[in-house]
């Protein structure tokens, strides 16, 4: 299943990339693959902005605005509930 198209904030600076491949390893949706020693974005629309790639990129070649794609969390945030999603009180996540 794919979510909305052309919306995610994921940015890859190919010039900085050293081709370590960790982004490919940590991405839960197979957004990256390494070709000829450089990471490439195969399908941006599969990105869920979890931020694992950016967190584990040793040269900071990846940038993404991370956040939980959870309407309940966003609504709670707008209503002054802190915007928290998982855990603690007033949570919404099922798992």
């Amino acid at each position, binding site marked *: *299943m*794919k*979510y*909305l*198209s052309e*919306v*995610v*904030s994921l940015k890859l600076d190919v010039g900085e990339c050293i081709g370590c491949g*960790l982004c490919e*390893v*940590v*991405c*839960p*949706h*197979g957004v990256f693959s390494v070709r000829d020693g450089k990471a490439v974005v195969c399908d941006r629309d*599969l*990105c*869920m*902005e*979890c*931020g*694992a790639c950016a*967190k*584990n990129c*040793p040269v900071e070649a990846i940038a993404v*605005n*991370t*956040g*939980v*794609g*959870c*309407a*309940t*969390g*966003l*609504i709670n945030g707008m209503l002054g509930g802190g915007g*928290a*999603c*998982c*855990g*603690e*009180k007033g*949570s*919404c*996540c*099922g*798992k």
Partner: protein
Amino acid sequence: MLTWRDFLGAVRVRLDVNRMNYSVEPGIYAVGNQDGNSPVFVSANYKLSFDWLRKELGGVDAWMLVLDTKGVNVWCAAGKGTFGTDEVINRVRAVSLEKIVSHRRLIVPQLGAVGVAAHVVRKECGFSVVYGPVRACDIKAFLAGGMKTTPEMRRVRFDLVDRLVVVPVEIVHWLKYAALLVIGLVLISGFSSGSYDSAVMLDRGVDALMVVSMAFLAGSILVPLLLPLLPGRAFSLKGLWAGLACWAVYMFLAENVMTGLSLLAGLLVTISITSFMAMNFTGCSTFTSQAGVKREMKFAIPLQILSLVAGIVLWVVSGVIKS
């Protein structure tokens, strides 16, 4: 060994009973006949995460390094940073892991990568991070394959079972709002021309109860069940189709009960509920981005409010006209 008590605990959590208070003590745990060469698996201290890993490690000699994630699962805790670089480093130091094992390797579940920077962990405490599979059930294949994950092991899925297992929590979460809406709709069902008629209230109140119940069931069960089949990518749009399915049922069930204007009112209330509930299912899903959800909410919420308000107004109007 997992016992019936662990199983009952899991069932209670799935039913949202004291769900946020189901944790184990952080620290180092031994599995099987472990020694200094056994692999170290890092886990959250949410008891469901801990038990899953423990169960899948059956027969493997290993160590479990349990982080203090405040009883929250790996993925959500990693998103908040409690399952994170600092906590890994602190816990490695707190248990003096370098004295327990001779190797310098931690197996971190891949979903923990959201909060853990492998290169920082290595620099700070000397342990290199190997990302293990997303699902604990792949751990034995991962170990057999020389601690390498296949693309399949790295992929987060959202299969039928994954979707249905969150249904009870969703039902419990939204039930009180549905109940309030039913009470409200039943109360306004009694307005007839120039007066308030309690017989009409009871008569039409039954229809109101049916409308909200159907919408609630469609939003909480039909949407997760048919998620990949419902047309459109936006969840609110998927919910709209689930609402229209309810309408077909009203036409059939309530042929002589709800007609004309009240049927339209019922439909508007229904789609506002199913669309809203489906939109909130984004939080349970494993593939929605925050930028996407924000974009979806911007157009969906005003329409949902409009649909609900129009439905309620029409519900009253249809009652007044009829009597």
